[in-house]
């Protein structure tokens, strides 16, 4: 196996040829924040939360091939500030009422906001979109008020489930996730057809019905440390 080396924030990382910066970092237990990327899905490079500086140039760590001998900056105040701005804008684009959201505590967007110390979400105007909940399906509901257009569901649906139930429609700011029918009930999708999409959705948008708040406070994903704080343990596994 051929390999190469580079460093992230002074830590030397060994990478295999063909790995992205993020894959190599994950394998070494170094966490790079991310929202659209997900293990097992093809990379999209859409959210830019994983932006790092590679020899001074901004790149998306989830798509950028690991660079031989490069100096990569990850957790600098400047980069984290930019990431925070991106996350903040996601909150402003949708309707995120965390206190009443069943994903609260299990949500990567919320967790990222905590990690990036987003304490004041009111710098930008709220767009307050009006998006009705699609609860037409007996087992799944879609609350796109919370969708961050990460595209994970689309890639899961196309590449893993092979169903193509989710896709983007619209352009520019109006681009959003939709299902391939007038509503979920008319897609003929079963819960199994969308299981992976629901599992990879980082927020409370693709919901399994009747689960709600059955996981108590204290046992939710974010109740045991900031998102990414288990990167080392995961790499060691």
């Amino acid at each position, binding site marked *: 196996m051929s390999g190469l080396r580079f460093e992230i924030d002074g830590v030397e990382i060994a990478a295999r040829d063909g790995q992205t910066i993020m894959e190599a970092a994950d394998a070494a237990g170094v966490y790079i924040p991310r929202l659209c990327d997900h293990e097992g899905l093809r990379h999209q490079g859409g959210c830019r939360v994983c932006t790092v500086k590679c020899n001074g140039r901004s790149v998306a760590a989830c798509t950028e091939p690991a660079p031989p001998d490069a100096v990569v900056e990850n957790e600098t105040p400047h980069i984290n500030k930019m990431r925070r701005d991106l996350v903040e804008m996601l909150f402003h684009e949708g309707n995120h009422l965390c*206190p*009443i959201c*069943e994903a609260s505590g299990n949500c990567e967007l919320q967790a990222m906001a905590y990690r990036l110390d987003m304490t004041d979400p009111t710098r930008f105007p709220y767009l307050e979109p009006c998006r*009705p*909940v699609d*609860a*037409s399906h007996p087992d799944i*509901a879609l609350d796109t008020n919370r969708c961050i257009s990460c595209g994970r569901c689309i890639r899961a649906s196309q590449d893993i489930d092979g169903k193509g139930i989710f896709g983007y429609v619209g352009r520019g700011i109006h681009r959003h996730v939709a299902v391939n029918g007038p509503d979920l009930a008319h897609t003929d999708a079963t819960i199994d057809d969308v299981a992976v999409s629901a599992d990879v959705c980082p927020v409370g948008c693709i*919901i399994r*019905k*009747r*689960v*709600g*708040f*059955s*996981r*108590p*406070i*204290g046992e939710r994903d974010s109740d045991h440390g900031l998102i990414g704080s288990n990167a080392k343990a995961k790499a060691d596994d």
Partner: protein
Amino acid sequence: MSEPRLIEISPVTRVEGHGKVTIHLDADGNVDEARLHIVEFRGFERFIRGRLMWEVPVIVQRLCGICPVSHHLAAAKAMDQIAGVDRPPPTAEKMRRLMHYGQVMQSHVLHFFHLAAPDLLFGFCAPAEKRNIFEVLKEHPELGRRAIMMRKFGQDIIEATAGKKIHGTAAIPGGINQNLPIEKRDAFLKDLADMEAWALDALALARNYTLEHMETVQNFAAFPSHYMSIVREGDGALDLYDGNLRAINQAGDRLFDQLPCEAYCDVITEDVRPWSYMKFPFFKSLGPDDGWYRVGPLARMNTIDFIDTPLANAARDELIAANGGVAHAILANHWARMIEVLHCVEKIRELLHDPDLQGTELRATGDRRFEGIGVIEAPRGNLIHHYEVDENDQVTYCNLIVSTTHNNEGMNRAVKDVAIKQISGQPEITEGMLNQVEVAIRSHDPCLSCATHALGQMPLKVDVIDASGSVIASRATDS
């Protein structure tokens, strides 16, 4: 002869639920009409439509920062029915009950020590600088310390059962999402003896005050009314969490009894008046003029047959005897509240010794229904949550009757009663007078008090307006 005047008392600061009082004077300076205006909760009833049924118990508790558990549980009870569950498993019901007793305890303690004690200890006409919790702490430090510890005990119970001190998530349709670990149970058991002793002392304070000031108590905004609450199924005992509806008239005769809560619409309807956003519920059989009623701790003492915990039951017998039957004196609510605090402590003890709290069957399921009505006795009184949910699990209809709404007519009458006695014919409006109006409202413990009374004070603005609409006098109390 002077122009007719309008006196407006309007709290300036508030967080949720705000009220203002308008006192209309006739040309001779006598009180013509007095009205309490409070913001409604209709916004929630509209906002909740389209939301998914399992979100409801978490969403609606945001109505209130002081007794969110009541809304959480009333909504969960309604959602049990929608989930097709008539009775959640014993562990779930007992966890919810524990949560509720913790909540009633902390809410009553807050009201009594922080909001009412300054008036009771220093008198209604004491200067504003005196009538606050800081003065109570200064002059009665041990009392203040106990108040804080009792409130904390109640809040810790809520945290252990609901997941958070405020706005937890534990009650889910058909059950609960956690049980009580033994370590937490044991920590609570350690504090119980103190809680019981302090609850008895607080009860004695409220009781003695009432008995020593019986004349004031009997005269201050005291007037007969009907009362309603839920009572325990079968034996009519006090049950704050579950039961059937009972109403009594002024003399104590039953207007209806053991009526399943689902049938509330058969006996209660709501009147709308153009000057208030808040509806006026009344008993259908008696009509809007005679059919109004009150709810709350004192109402419960009147409606129930007995309390199933011995200390609280003895205290309730004494309250009823001292009032010579049905108690109409609004200030006796303080006494009733402390009886309920004691009852909660006794109930918490009973529950903590029940191994069902460590059970693992947390949730039941059943055949989906489309309507659910959850009724509970909140600290402030009866609370009704009524929902319809469609086949997609989305809420299509919501009606909430909160305690403050049940008491709307009663509060208006209390305000008018005090205004007539205090303000009619007076050339000048003093702070003492305004405070008495405020006390009449506060004795009903309306939701607006939790916000405006956080520091034991209710900022008021009074405008005296003549018939032409110009302000001829103005008075503000903001400290």
